[in-house]
């Protein structure tokens, strides 16, 4: 009998504590993010769509080593075509295509890149109407110098 009464009292106190906690939530600001209107602020480590960075003067960072194409677990997802510049003996990147529709966003290509030319951005709205339009060429992948600077900043801050 004594046990039952003490259990009952402690139960009432516990339920009261729970109820008052929920009541405190009533006066808090909702944490809901109304998505299509407001977009979330994502961490620099977020692995979204891949992009190619450019230097300050607008030239490619990529040196055409094709490490990213080799390390990619999805086979021929990244395709790089290079040609040798006859004067400076350096490689020119002519074509750089990524099939985003097959990308698994593992980020291996960004890890392996020796000059940090390929990065993951925070863009995640990649839905499209056809598979063909998800194949992105060099022009679509390359960010302009200001955007590149922003992305580098964000990656460094993490």
């Amino acid at each position, binding site marked *: 009998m004594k046990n039952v009464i003490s259990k*009952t009292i402690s139960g009432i106190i516990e*339920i009261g504590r*729970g*109820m008052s*906690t*929920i*009541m405190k*939530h*009533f006066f*808090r*600001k*909702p*944490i*809901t993010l*109304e998505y299509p209107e407001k977009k979330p602020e994502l961490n620099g480590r977020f692995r979204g769509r891949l992009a190619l960075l450019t230097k300050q003067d607008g030239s490619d960072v990529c040196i055409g080593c094709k490490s990213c194409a080799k390390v990619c677990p999805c086979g021929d997802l990244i395709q790089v075509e290079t040609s040798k510049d006859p004067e400076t003996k350096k490689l020119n990147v002519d074509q750089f295509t990524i099939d985003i529709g097959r990308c698994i966003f593992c980020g291996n290509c960004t890890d392996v890149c020796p000059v940090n030319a390929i990065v993951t951005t925070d863009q995640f709205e990649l839905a499209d109407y056809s598979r063909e339009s998800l194949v992105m060429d060099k022009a679509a992948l390359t960010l302009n110098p200001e955007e590149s600077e922003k992305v580098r900043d964000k990656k460094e801050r993490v």
Partner: protein
Amino acid sequence: MYELYTKILSMIGIPEIFAQMSWPVFPFGCIAALLVFVVIFLVLMERKVLAWLTIRKGPNRVGPNGFFQTFADAIKLLFKEDIMSKQTNKVLFTLAPMIVFVPVMVIYGLMPFTEHLIAINLAVGLFLIFALSSITTVGIVLGGWASNNKYSLLGGMRSAAQAISYEIPLVIAVLSIAVLAGSLNMLDIVKAQEGGILSWNFLPAFIGFVVLFICSIAEVNRIPFDLPEAESELVSGYNTEYSGMKFALFFLAEYSALFIISVLIATLFLGGYLPPFNDYLSVILLDNIINNPAIMDLLVHIEQGFWLVAKTYAIIFAIIWIRATLPRLRADQLMAFSWKFLLPLSFLNLILVATLKLFI
């Protein structure tokens, strides 16, 4: 009231014979309209309050602040296909939502919303209310059985077990009110509580108030006693196989039962339509200003409605608050809680109240 009704109808140009025929149906027309509007508001209120209690925003797309969300949901339900699987018992399957819905609607007619606004004033109103509210369970069991689905059947069986164990403490707790008021008539029960907050029934019968509150949550199958539905275990419980209009009827019955059980708690324990002061506010404040007794009567009448609605929605808020806080009970915990705890408590309450009544 009847004279006014015939006068209005004759003004529109409808013969008196129609008025005579339609008069008995008229209160139920009003009740049906009230019920639908109450449910539409209640569903929205539940979703909004639940969202606020869990730091969300709730529906806010349809109309200003999402106020038309329920209308959109209702229209969607009305246009949905009425699916019935092959092996179901079609008669019972169709009958079940009606059996759930109709008793709740009749209970609306037995409730004193204000002093004059009571459709059927019976001498045994309280008894009939509890008799009718138990019929709902039959409909739920029937729906679970006729669906020919294991989840539905389990839900229906649980509902029966729950109803049997929770109705006994419920009725014994209410018995103390009948002892206090000396009557089973709902109007008499309210009138016995006249004279401010201190003469309301929840003070002498506080244990009964708590027991009735817990049991009525179980009676309307809400969290933490929503075992017949139990989303995480039984898909959707007894209404798994229902769709379209039949599901809408179950839904309507559930929410109108929530409203009416809150009105019942307010009426039995919190003074019904009576104000928490010694006299009506409109009498206290405006007695010297307005000398016309007809206007005064009307004001008092409106105030009575206001007090009942305020009390009812306070109780509904508490029920939603409990829903946001507590997890669902296990079936054996549910049974143990009812038989070992609530039943002795309700007997204790009855003995205390009866002793009190004897000496006062």
